[in-house]
C-alpha cells in the first residue's frame, strides 16, 4: 500500500499519535528546547490548568536571547531581562526540566547547543519556541518553530497539533566557487524564492553541493529555511552526520550508537518519491551574497547591482523596494561594493559555530580591522567559546582588534544589550535584516562569515575573492 515516500513523510508518519479527518495531526515530539523569552507564559498556562509537564526528560532549557555577552558572571543589569531569566530559573526546577543557565559549560544559543550536545539526532521531531528551530533539520529530522501556546501543548502532552505541510525539494548541483560558502547558498536560494516563496512547504535540500558540506554548513542552510517562509528544511543524514554525532555528550554511545546508525542509514527519500515542488540550482551560479533591503529575500551577488525600480514588474514590488531602500539609505541600481560599514557582527544561530569562527580567523590572521569598524565575535555556545580559546583563535581576534564576547543571541535581534545604533550599517552573519532587527533604525547587510571578515579588514563591503591572501575554504 505504501507509495514511495519522501524523508519528510517517513518521519512525520512515524510520529502521528492521532490523525483524524478534519483535525490536524497530533504529532509526538521527541525533543523540545525552550528559552527564557517564549516559555514563561506557557509555564503559567500549566499552572492555571494545574497540570505538570508530560515528560520533562524530553525538554531542555537554556538562556540565550535576553542575556548580555559581557560579564555574564554578574547579575543582568536590565531589570526586565533579569526577571525573565530568573523566571526561567524558577520554572525549570519547579517542572523538573534541565536548564543550562548562564555560566554553565553547556549554555549557548539553543540551536547551537542541541546539536553539539548530541541532543539533536536523525529521524526525530524537534520543536522550540523559535523560528530558527529549522537549524536541527541538518541532521535529517523534522524540526520547526512554534508559538508559545504550542510550547504549552508540548509541555502538557509532548505533542503538537499540526497540519501536514507540502514538500519541496531543492537540489544544488556542482561545486562551489572560491569564496562561496553555505551562507551564500541559502541567501542565493532565498533571493530566488523571495521571503514567502516556500510558505506552506517543508524543504529537503539535496544534491552534490549539499552532500559536500560539513554539518556546521548544513545547519547554516537549514537555519534560514524559515526566511523563505518554509516551516523547516532537512537534509538526509550520511557519514558526515554520523561522525559529527559520534561521541557527543548525550548521543547514544557504543553498540547502541552503532545500531542507531544502521537505522539512520534508511532515513532518505525513496527513489521516485513525489514532492509538491522541485527546484534545481547550479552551484556555479552562486557567488558571495549580500542583502541590500529589509527582508532576507532582498539579496544579490556582491558584484551585482541593487535592482532598479524599472527591473521590477509590479507597482507593489516597486513600493516595497523604495520603502526598503529609503530605510537603508541606499539608491536603486547602485553597487554595494565599497560601501562603508560601521559594525561587523559575527554570531547568531546561523553562523556562530566553531567552524565559522575558524573561517573568520583564517581570513584575519595577522591582519587588523579597519579603523572605522567595531567588530563583535559572539560564539554560539560556551563550548564554542572554550574551543576557540583552546585553538588560539582568541589571540588572532584580539590582534585584529575584534572583541570576542560570551555566548548568546547578541546583536541578531536587538533585544539584549547588544544593539546596532540608529542609522549605522552592520554587516552581519545573522539571519534577518528587517527594519530595526538589530536595534531601532539599525541597517543590516546579511552576508557570510567570510564576507563579514573581509569587511572587518577593509571597513567596507568587499568581494572576498578580491582580498589578497584570503584563505578560502570550500566545505563551509
Amino acid at each position: 500500500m505504501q507509495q514511495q515516500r519522501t524523508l519528510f513523510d517517513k518521519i512525520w508518519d512515524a510520529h502521528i499519535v492521532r490523525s483524524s479527518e478534519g483535525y490536524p495531526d497530533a504529532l509526538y515530539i521527541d525533543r523540545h528546547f525552550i528559552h527564557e523569552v517564549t516559555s514563561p507564559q506557557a509555564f503559567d498556562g500549566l499552572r492555571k490548568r494545574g497540570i505538570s509537564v508530560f515528560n520533562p526528560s524530553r525538554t531542555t532549557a537554556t538562556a540565550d536571547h535576553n542575556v548580555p555577552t559581557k560579564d555574564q558572571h554578574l547579575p543582568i543589569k536590565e531589570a526586565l531581562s533579569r526577571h525573565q531569566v530568573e523566571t526561567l530559573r524558577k520554572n525549570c526546577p519547579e517542572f523538573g526540566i534541565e536548564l543550562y543557565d548562564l555560566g554553565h559549560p553547556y549554555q549557548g544559543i539553543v540551536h547551537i547547543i542541541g546539536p553539539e550536545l548530541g541532543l539533536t539526532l536523525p529521524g526525530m521531531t524537534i520543536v522550540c519556541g523559535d523560528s530558527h528551530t529549522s537549524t536541527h533539520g541538518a541532521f535529517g529530522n523534522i524540526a520547526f518553530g512554534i508559538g508559545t501556546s504550542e510550547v504549552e501543548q508540548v509541555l502538557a502532552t509532548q505533542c503538537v497539533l499540526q497540519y501536514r505541510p507540502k514538500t519541496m525539494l531543492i537540489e544544488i548541483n556542482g561545486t562551489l566557487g572560491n569564496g562561496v560558502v553555505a551562507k551564500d547558498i541559502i541567501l542565493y536560494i532565498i533571493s530566488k524564492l523571495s521571503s514567502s516563496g516556500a510558505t506552506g512547504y517543508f524543504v529537503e535540500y539535496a544534491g552534490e553541493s549539499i552532500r559536500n558540506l560539513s554539518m556546521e554548513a548544513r545547519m547554516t542552510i537549514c537555519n534560514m529555511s524559515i526566511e523563505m517562509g518554509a516551516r523547516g528544511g532537512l537534509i538526509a543524514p550520511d557519514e558526515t552526520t554520523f561522525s559529527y554525532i559520534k561521541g557527543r555528550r548525550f548521543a547514544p554511545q557504543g553498540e547502541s550508537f552503532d545500531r542507531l546508525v544502521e537505522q539512520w542509514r534508511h532515513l532518505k527519500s525513496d527513489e521516485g518519491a513525489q514532492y509538491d515542488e522541485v527546484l534545481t540550482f547550479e552551484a556555479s551560479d552562486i557567488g558571495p551574497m549580500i542583502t541590500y533591503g529589509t527582508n532576507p529575500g532582498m539579496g544579490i551577488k556582491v558584484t551585482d547591482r541593487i535592482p532598479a525600480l524599472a527591473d521590477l514588474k509590479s507597482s507593489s514590488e516597486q513600493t516595497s523596494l523604495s520603502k526598503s531602500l529609503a530605510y537603508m539609505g541606499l539608491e536603486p541600481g547602485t553597487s554595494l561594493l565599497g560601501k562603508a560599514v560601521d559594525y561587523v557582527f559575527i554570531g547568531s544561530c546561523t553562523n556562530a559555530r566553531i567552524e565559522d569562527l575558524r573561517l573568520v580567523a583564517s581570513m584575519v590572521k595577522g591582519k587588523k580591522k579597519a579603523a572605522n569598524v567595531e567588530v563583535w565575535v559572539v560564539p554560539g555556545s560556551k563550548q564554542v567559546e572554550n574551543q576557540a580559546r583552546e585553538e588560539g583563535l582568541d589571540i588572532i581576534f584580539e590582534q585584529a582588534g575584534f572583541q570576542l564576547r560570551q555566548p548568546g543571541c547578541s546583536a541578531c535581534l536587538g533585544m539584549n544589550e547588544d544593539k546596532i545604533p540608529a542609522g549605522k550599517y552592520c554587516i552581519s552573519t545573522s539571519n534577518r535584516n528587517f527594519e530595526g532587527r538589530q536595534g531601532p533604525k539599525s541597517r543590516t547587510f546579511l552576508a557570510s562569515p567570510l564576507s563579514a571578515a573581509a569587511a572587518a579588514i577593509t571597513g567596507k563591503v568587499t568581494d572576498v575573492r578580491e582580498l589578497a591572501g584570503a584563505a578560502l575554504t570550500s566545505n563551509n
Partner: protein
Amino acid sequence: MSKEKFITLVSTAVPMPIENIDTDQIIPARFLKATTREGFGENLFRDWRYNSDETPRNEFVLNDPTYSGKILVAGKNFGCGSSREHAAWSLYDHGFSVVISSFFADIFKNNALNNALLPIQVSDEFLKKIFAAIEKNPKTRLTVDLSQQNVVLEDGSSETFDINAYKKTCLLNGYDDIDYLLSLKDEIKHFELAH
C-alpha cells in the same frame, strides 16, 4: 481552558497596504521581556508608531483618528519572520479581532488562531477592493461571518474564505488545542511506550 468565542463581527477597518510585514515590526524584540500575555498592545508597531523621542508619528495609520476598528487589513505575507506569539497577543491586546491579508506566514497564522485572532486570507483582487472601499470611506464597515466563512463589504460584494473545520469549531466555541490534546493523553502514553 475556554477562550473568548468568536461571533460575527461588524466593524470599520484599519488599512495597512504594506507587504511582508514581519513580526519584528508588529512587536520589536526589545518589548518581549514580559512574562505574562497581557499589555503587549502598548508596543504594537512600536517603531512605526513612535519617533525615537517617543512622540507619535502622526502619519502612521494607528495614530490617525480617521481610521479605527477591530479589523486590520494588510498587504501580502503578513506575519513573516520570528515565531513570537507576542505578535498575535499585541494585535489582540490593541483591540484587533481579525487580520485580513492576501497571504499569511505559517507560524503567525497558527499563533493567531490560538489566540482568538482570526486571520482571513482573501484574493489579491478582493484585498484591493477592501483597500479601495476604506480609502473611499474610512468609516465603511466590513462584516466578518465566521460561521458562513465570508467577508461582506457595504456595497454587498463579498468573498468566502477557507478555515479548517477543527479551528473553526475551536473559535466558535472558545476551545483550545490543549483541551483536545489532553483528551488524547492515554493514547499519547501508549504511543510513547511503543515509540
